[in-house]
């Protein structure tokens, strides 16, 4: 059962091959048995899941239901869940139980999905290896000595280890696509504004975007159908109809043009990853796609610009964690200043503190123009690169990240080396474009990902290309060793 896709599980429920309760119990048992290996969950919610499963079964008996009804999923612990602890991977929120649901959570609840639990993540989504979580690192199912990527490492590992058919995730600089690539699954970061940010704990508001993680492009399409919505509670949400992302997923690719940015096939790219990518591109050409070399000249500036803008926004977003109203408060504060300082010093981990410091510095008097303002100028240039490129091509394809999963601690002492993990993913966040990662090969027996970057709101086309590629390749069906 764990190897069935979402689409297959939905069909099985329709055909009464199994009930949602049976399905839910199966995955809960699997989590109970296996997750000690991976640490992909912060909170498992068996009682809630079984209640939701029973409700879904009743609803299914009563009549036609949405595709997701009764299907188990996992929410990244960045999404607020009413009545269920939402930690964001931080000691700061270890005791935080929201009185409201994130819109993404509410959308899935309305569709009848069953929530198995909340997945592990880098603290406040700050990290590319899941090593910054207060709840300990997530282990990559393909090699438990390696990181799963981050920050959505728990969601990615849970899907890869078949502990859940699907999961929600968020992506600020690559946090969906990079762990998807490193864990050999499919992940999609939609266009900024496509999915509501309400109830999603903010890291960098102008970059954060929620998206699905699953095994296949088709499953990602099913999930995006539920996640995407216009939300009046999020001012940056875009009022635009949500198409049925599965509708055109089988469309013919003939006549489409794919751009390969030369900056993404540079010396930093692992030769194994590059080979896998070239093979996948060759498959696409067989499907009628035209390939074109393109340039995104400001690519090299994306990491420095990101590491000014994201920490700057984070430094303000995380000011609310002050020990006054909720969350961690230090013991026996002497006075207000002591309470602020110790609550934050004790409640936040090192990487979070580093980014708050960097962000506050970049915004401070005398440095704003040199850092924040300059970074915003660079951001506009990066966006212009993409706008120019999309005048000539339908989608852009490149690597998701330079290398397969690395060992724990390999980049622990060097934040900049860690930041460079996101070198191919960050630009799309800066531009607000949708990006997607699908598995395209194995390097050193570990998965690597192919990234598809689409034009604004062109998720359906990206899913179409990914799905057609998955029809003629089988990388998405590969399972981590020891799981079958």
């Amino acid at each position, binding site marked *: 059962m764990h190897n069935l896709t979402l689409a297959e599980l939905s069909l099985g429920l329709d055909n009464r091959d199994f009930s949602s309760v049976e399905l839910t119990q199966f995955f809960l048992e699997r989590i109970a048995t296996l997750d000690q290996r991976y640490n992909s969950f912060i909170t498992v919610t068996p009682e809630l899941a079984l209640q939701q499963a029973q409700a879904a079964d009743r609803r299914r008996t009563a009549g036609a239901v949405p595709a997701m009804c009764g299907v188990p999923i996992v929410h990244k612990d960045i999404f607020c869940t009413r009545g269920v602890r939402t930690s964001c991977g931080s000691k700061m929120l270890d005791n935080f139980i929201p*009185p409201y649901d994130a819109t993404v959570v509410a959308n899935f609840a309305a569709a009848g999905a069953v929530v198995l639990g909340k997945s592990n993540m880098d603290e406040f989504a700050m990290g590319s290896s899941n090593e910054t979580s207060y709840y300990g690192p997530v282990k990559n199912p393909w090699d438990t000595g390696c990181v799963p990527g981050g920050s959505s490492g728990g969601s990615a590992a849970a899907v890869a280890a078949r502990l859940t058919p699907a999961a929600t995730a968020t992506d600020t600089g690559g946090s969906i696509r990079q762990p998807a690539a490193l864990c050999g699954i499919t992940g999609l970061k939609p266009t900024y504004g496509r999915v509501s940010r*309400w109830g999603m704990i903010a890291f960098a508001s102008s970059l954060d975007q929620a998206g699905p993680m699953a095994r296949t492009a088709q499953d990602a399409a099913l999930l995006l159908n539920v996640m995407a919505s216009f939300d009046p509670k999020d001012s940056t949400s875009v009022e635009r109809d949500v198409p049925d992302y599965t509708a055109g997923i089988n469309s013919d690719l003939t006549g489409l043009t794919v751009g390969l940015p030369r900056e993404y096939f540079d010396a930093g790219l692992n030769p194994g990853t590059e080979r896998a990518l070239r093979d996948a591109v060759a498959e696409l050409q067989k499907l009628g796609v035209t390939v074109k070399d393109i340039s995104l000249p400001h690519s090299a500036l994306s990491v420095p610009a990101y590491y000014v803008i994201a920490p700057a926004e984070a430094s303000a977003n995380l000011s609310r964690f002050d020990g*006054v109203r909720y969350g961690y408060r230090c013991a026996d504060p002497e006075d207000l200043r002591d309470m*602020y300082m110790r609550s934050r010093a004790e409640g936040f981990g090192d990487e979070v503190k580093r980014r708050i410091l960097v962000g506050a510095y970049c915004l401070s008097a005398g440095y704003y123009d040199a850092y924040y303002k300059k970074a915003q100028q660079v951001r506009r240039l990066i966006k212009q690169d993409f706008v120019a490129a999309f005048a000539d091509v339908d989608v852009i394809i490149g690597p998701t990240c330079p290398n397969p999963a690395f060992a724990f601690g390999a980049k622990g002492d060097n934040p900049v080396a860690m930041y460079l993990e996101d070198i191919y993913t960050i630009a799309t966040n800066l531009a607000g474009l949708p990006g997607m990662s699908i598995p395209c090969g194995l390097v050193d027996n570990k998965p690597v990902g192919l990234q598809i970057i689409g034009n604004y709101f062109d998720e359906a086309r990206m899913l179409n290309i990914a799905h057609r590629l998955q029809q003629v390749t089988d990388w998405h069906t590969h399972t981590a060793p020891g799981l079958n």
Partner: protein
Amino acid sequence: MTTTDWEIVIGLEVHTQLATRSKIFSGASTAFGAEPNTQACAIDLAMPGTLPVLNEEALRMAVMFGIAVNAEIGKTSAFDRKNYFYPDLPKGYQTTQLERPIVGAGYVDIQRADGSSKRIRIHHAHLEEDAGKSLHEDFHGMSGIDLNRAGTPLIEIVSEPDMRSADEAVAFARKLHGIVTALGICDGDMSQGSMRFDVNISIRRPGAGFGTRTETKNLNSFRFMERAIALEVERQINVLEEGGSIVQETRLYDGDKDTARSMRSKEQANDYRYFPCPDLLPVEIDDAYIEALRADLPELPDVRRQRFVQQYQLSTYDADVLGCDTGLATFFETTTLQCGNAKLVANWVMGELSAKLNSTGLDIRESRVTPQGLSTLITRIADQSISNNMAKQVFEAMWNGEGDCDAIIAARGFQQMSDSDAIATLVEQVIADNAQQIANYIKADASKRPKMLGYFVGQVMKLSRGQANPQQVNDMVLSKLNALL
């Protein structure tokens, strides 16, 4: 030392709470006076993952203000975050407008005591959210936080340093108060913090450049503003004349003690690390939006005061005072509509009523004498049922809740005696009882007689226990005495 050697330079920052029903970025109510923390929703509490959505009503009100002060309206305005930690600031930043405010440069004209007017320029006005309140009493050495006010919409109005005296500053503040209350965008209730004034003050020798300024924050009455300016000007003059220099600082004025103290110096000032708020998109408005509001703009104080002169034949001074204050203007017009006699109503509203409001600290809307009550009282004065003196006593009784006007007049036996026969009888009696004084009157020089007349009138009034119509008594005594000559 004399203040005339120095020129005073004053600029104002005015925090004006907008009278929206809900908060600027959330749906929570803005009503004043609820139990602490009962009007703060997840957004106001800055719970994780919550997001702001701009209240369009706040935007509309800010644009109305901009139109009323002849300002450029920001077609694209944007919100910024002002970062600082304080327990009553839940997000750790205030959402405000720094670079692109909704209201750009504008002006208002103030009327000075000598009847001349002066233009005061407005630098800009921006939308922002109010903070909550920290309560330092009743918590056993700890502080309580009430977030009901957090997120209440404000416009902060920033003037140019165009005022040259406390009187001008107060006139400007009153004019702004009149404008925002006329527009209905602020309830104008300063005792509840609906308008709060920060006053920037510096002094200089005439013709010199600007001196170093200090800012006295959070003044919540015109009287405090006047006092705080006077104190600070005096302090600055003393410092400079003793060879010292002014330190740029923020000061706090204590109205109860009528003293001020330094709160923090420029060196201790925060670096607010402003940057554009990524949760809110820039606000775009077009000409049609602005013109629709302009067309529907209520009557503004300057128009109102001119109308009062024309429609009610008020003096310029009366029209300025009544026209500028929306509460007084409404009270005046409502009362006049009921009893006519605008001049008498104006006198009473600006006289007895204003004095009562001042001494009790009540807002005109809380007045214990209603326009209906005052209009009856004025009718009784006009029809000579009661004298002015009686009217003052009746007003006092009405204020104290002793009943309506006519009931009080009846209860106190204040009915004015206007019956000619009754008064004639009293006059006859006084003449009969005062033979010697009558003889003196007859002998006296004609120029001295008017003064002597008062004695007889007084005697008649005394006999009538004050109820006789004084004018009638006067006329009747005079004709009787003339007949004796």
